[in-house]
Every structure is written in structure tokens, then in C-alpha cells.
């Protein structure tokens, strides 16, 4: 709840026409700006936010720091793309705008969206940074879009010059499927220096994480906060329980792997603690289990190797399904859905598990693992993509036999 006046510097240069951020760089930027304004004004009603553009005909202040969200959103309409970004001038004008803020008690902060190449040299940026630090202005930099040589270095140097006690931050957002605003939500730019974030940021983060454009669990947290909270808590607990069960199942699937048993023995006893553990841990175990079951050449389980190939030869459905999954894992879009569909098919999965030694499909912990596999198939799929070319080789070998 820091009392803050913020100036947001928007890059509306020609580089923003590019579509590598959906729908276009400029649109992604505008969404991020809207979210930031909302978060700032929500976290403290006396916060003010202002907006200026850095490219176009020249640096232009669209709205001076105000707490009226409507005014800010309105000025984002009808912005035109063109020209080149002038970072130094933009920052200096922002500093001037903040200097003349009405409430002198507010802390000063500038948020810069640096999407196009930076023309100034490192020295000039460092001088600007020092001046900001001297006047106790914090600076947040969002580095996205163009990535030419030296741009990251220059922005890092600028941040180092400004940074006073970790009040300034830089975020690098590479192009990808995630929206710019989604990536920013989890950064300190939104959450405001680790104070835990406003309710706005938290609920926006929850919505993004849930993968639903509306509300998590289909329940509006504003309409029914207790229900939404209860659903969220029970989901966390279920996830924790499934992770612990998955660890146990992974242990059963590979008795000879010393590391895994070590992890698994910790699992049942420290189930609650594991809730907060990095999910990668669990996923590597799961992935190891699957890798072993799919005849991974890196593993040293020769015994299981032969068994698996026998099983594959005996069960044409299994071989076909595995082949399908391997093929589709090389494609990006549908891989997740298909893999999860395959895994969701109970009979298919239990037939795989039946062929594994030491796994009883009727074991309740195994059944829980099946359910958890659905949830984790997404992240596991990413790791599987690396294994896919190797798996493919393996499949081809088997077919030749």
C-alpha cells in the first residue's frame, strides 16, 4: 500500500506493429498498461498514474498523474504507431511530470516499456539513471520486443545506476504464447516490491494461472469470495495429496533407482511440506517413471527394456498408442490435448501399468496417480519433447524387429 505516483512510458514506435506478441506488440503493451493502472489504483486509492508516449512526433504526455482510471483508459484509445522511441527524453519528461505531482508525499516511479532498439549509449543512460537515483525516483523496465545486441546490456546498466535498495526492477519478456500482461502479473512490477500484492493483482494472477479468461473455478471471487476461497484451498490440498501419491507411485515403478526411492520415502512422511516444493521435482520423477516404461535408452534397466518391447510386440494397441503419442509430441499445438486424452483413457493406461513389474493397477495410490497424471501431463509434455526424438528412434527400432 505504498503511496505512489507512477508515470508509464509507452513505446509506440514502428517496431510495435510486429505480431510476435499476440495480437500485436502494441496491443499487448496496451493491455499490460491497463492492468498496471488498475493494480496501482486499487492498491492505494490515493495513488496516481500518468501516461506518456515516447515515439511518434516526439515525447508526448497523454495524461498527467491522476487517480481516475477512466481517463487513463480513454487516452489509450486512438494511439498511433510510428516514429522511433526516444528513451532518454521519455524518462526525463516522466521525471518532470512526477516532479510536478500534486501530492508531494507520493513516492515517484517510472515504468518504461522498451520494445524497440535503444539508440542511446550506455554512458548517457547511466547518467540519467544516477539522476533518477539522486532524486529518489524508482524505475521499472519492461524489456520486450526487439532484442538487438547491447539493448539488454544497456537496460541492465540503466537499472544498476537507478537501483536504490531494490526498489527498481527489470523484466525481460521473450516472445511466446504467454501474453505480455500475464508474464508481468507475477513480477514485482505488479506486486509492488514484495508486499504481497493487491487483491486485484492476486485475483488477476489466479485467473491467468487457472487458464480461464473469466474466473477461476467459474466462480466470481467478487460475487462469492468465500466459495472461491474454499474452492481454491481445496484444490491446493488435492494437488498436494496427488503429488505425494504420485511420488509414491513413482517409487513403486522403479525400485532400483536409488535417488527416486530417497525422494519417495520423504514423500509420504512430508506430504504437507511437499505441497510447496517445486513441481519440477515431482515431474522429473514421473517423467523418469514414464521414460523407463517407454524403453528410454539412457536408463540402465535392461531387464525392463526386454519386457517392454515384448509387451509392445504383444499389444499392438499399446504400440500404436505409443507411436501416436510420440508423433504428436513433436507437434506443438495438439500434443498436450492428445497426450492427456491418451492418459485419460483408463484402460490404456492400466494396460501399460499392468506390463510394468511391481505395479498393481488396482492399487489406490496408482489410481490417484492416474488422476494426477492428467494435471501434470502438460508440464511433463515439455520434458517429453526432448525425449520424443529418442523415443521415436526406439519405436522405429522396435518396428523393424
Amino acid at each position, binding site marked *: 500500500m505504498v503511496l505512489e505516483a507512477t508515470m508509464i512510458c509507452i513505446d509506440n514506435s514502428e517496431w510495435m506493429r510486429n505480431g510476435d506478441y499476440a495480437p500485436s506488440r502494441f496491443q499487448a503493451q496496451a493491455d499490460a498498461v491497463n492492468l498496471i493502472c488498475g493494480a496501482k489504483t486499487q492498491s492505494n486509492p490515493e495513488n496516481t498514474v500518468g501516461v506518456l508516449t515516447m515515439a511518434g512526433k516526439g515525447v508526448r504526455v497523454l495524461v498527467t498523474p491522476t487517480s481516475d482510471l477512466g481517463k487513463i483508459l480513454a487516452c489509450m484509445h486512438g494511439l498511433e504507431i510510428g516514429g522511433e522511441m526516444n528513451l532518454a527524453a521519455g524518462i526525463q519528461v516522466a521525471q518532470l511530470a512526477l*516532479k510536478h505531482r500534486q501530492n*508531494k508525499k507520493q513516492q515517484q516511479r517510472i515504468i518504461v516499456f522498451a520494445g524497440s532498439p535503444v539508440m542511446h549509449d550506455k554512458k548517457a543512460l547511466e547518467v540519467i539513471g*544516477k539522476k533518477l*537515483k*539522486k*532524486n*529518489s525516483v524508482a524505475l521499472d523496465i519492461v524489456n520486450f520486443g526487439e532484442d538487438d545486441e547491447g539493448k539488454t546490456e544497456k537496460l541492465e546498466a540503466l537499472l544498476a545506476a537507478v537501483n*536504490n*535498495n531494490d526498489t527498481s526492477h527489470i523484466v525481460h519478456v521473450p516472445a511466446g504464447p504467454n501474453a505480455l500482461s500475464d508474464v508481468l502479473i507475477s513480477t514485482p512490477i505488479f506486486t509492488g516490491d514484495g508486499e504481497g500484492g493487491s487483491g486485484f493483482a492476486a485475483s488477476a494472477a489466479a485467473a491467468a494461472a487457472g487458464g480461464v479468461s473469466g474466473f477461476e473455478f467459474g466462480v466470481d471471487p467478487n460475487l462469492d469470495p468465500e466459495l472461491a476461497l474454499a474452492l481454491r484451498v481445496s484444490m491446493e490440498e488435492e494437488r498436494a495429496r496427488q503429488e505425494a501419491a504420485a511420488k509414491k507411485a513413482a517409487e513403486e515403478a522403479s525400485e532400483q533407482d536409488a535417488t527416486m526411492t530417497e525422494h519417495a520415502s520423504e514423500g509420504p512422511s512430508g506430504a504437507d511440506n511437499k505441497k510447496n516444493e517445486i513441481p519440477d521435482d515431482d515431474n522429473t520423477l514421473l517423467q523418469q517413471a514414464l521414460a523407463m516404461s517407454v524403453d528410454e535408452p539412457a536408463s540402465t534397466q535392461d531387464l525392463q527394456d526386454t519386457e517392454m518391447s515384448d509387451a509392445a510386440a504383444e499389444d499392438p494397441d499399446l504400440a500404436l498408442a505409443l507411436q501416436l503419442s510420440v508423433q504428436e509430441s513433436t507437434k506443438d499445438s495438439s500434443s498436450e490435448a492428445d497426450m492427456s486424452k491418451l492418459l485419460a483413457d483408463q484402460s490404456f493406461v492400466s494396460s501399460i501399468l499392468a506390463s510394468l513389474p511391481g505395479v498393481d493397477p488396482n492399487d489406490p495410490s496408482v489410481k490417484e496417480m492416474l488422476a494426477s497424471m492428467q494435471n501434470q501431463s502438460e508440464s511433463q509434455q515439455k520434458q517429453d519433447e526432448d525425449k520424443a526424438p529418442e523415443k521415436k528412434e526406439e519405436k522405429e527400432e522396435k518396428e523393424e524387429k
Partner: protein
Amino acid sequence: MACTHDHSCEDHDCSSNWSLYKHIDLSKVTALNEANPGSVKSVFKAWEERLNSSGEHLESNEGDPELLVYIPFTSDVKIKSISVVGGADGTSPSKLRVFINRDGIDFSDAQSMQPVQEWDLVENLQGVLEYQTRYSKFQSVANITLHFPESFAGDTTQIHYIGFKGEATQLKRDVVATIVYEITPNPSDHKTRAETGGGLSHVE
């Protein structure tokens, strides 16, 4: 200008004169260009502790000796003189410019504005020098801003103690915080005389 102590201090108790530090609103004291945020609060202490440099002191950032210290008081004070103890090896400030009752001053303002008073300082490591003010200008000070533009060596500035001598009034110069302005009148707020039972005497 100097407070010549040819007798020892314990006799006439200098410290009671320098008691304005008690009226400083420490939570709202800020400084610009300080190396450690919050270290500025450590320079306001009792007269006896002015030479005690074991705790923190105020230091400017590397390579930049300018310092700007904003000090609000809990009530209006009258300041007779100011004492500043700097650091050794040329890190003492060499000039002092002072602004009264202005908040939100930053470096560009401080450099361009005319100060209420300014002094050329001398290295005052023993804390025996004080700088008198033009008392008429320092009659009702709610807050004061000290600007140290440079130091003797030129690299950084260190300050161990800032003291004020004077007296505190009990008055507070307060901004009117809560006023409700009516855009349209609310009839229930405006009772007529008939309703309140007053009015003209009735006619028999």
C-alpha cells in the same frame, strides 16, 4: 558567531539549549542522495552525543557530495542557530543553504531557488561551532530543508550531527485536512427556525 567555550560544558549545561531535536518529527525526516536510506535519522541526537560516531551517520552517494535534508517539526519552532558536525578527511560540508516551510524540494529546485539564508561552513569536528540565523526570518518554522551543495574534498559528504538551538512554540501549522464542500444543499442540514422551535413571538 562561535560559541566560545572557555569553560567546560558541564557547568552551564549547553545541552538544554540544543533541545530542539526533541521537536523533530523523525518519522517524516527524509534526505535525497543519501547512500543508506534512512540513515539521515541518526544525525539528530542530544548535544552530548554529537561527537559519538559509533552509530550510523549520514553519507552521500559515491562521487556526489550534494545532500538535501528535509526536517519537519512537530510544532512551529523558532531557530536561533544551527550546528553541523561533518566527517573527517574533507568530507565535511563546505556550504549550507536553508529553505523554510517548503516541502517537496528536489535538487533542481534547491539549486535554482534563493535560500532563506546560506553559510560557508568550516570543518567542525569538535562540534563547538554554531551558525546564527537571521532570527526574524526563522520565527515560525514548521519544516526546514538543508541543502549541502559541496564538501571540502569534493567526493562525498558525511554528516554526523545536526543541531538546532531555539525555542518551540506550541502552535502547529496544520493544513486543513478535512473539509466537506457541499455541491447541493442537504435540506436536513438546514433546519428552519420554525422547526427548531425558535422564531418570532406569536401574536396574541
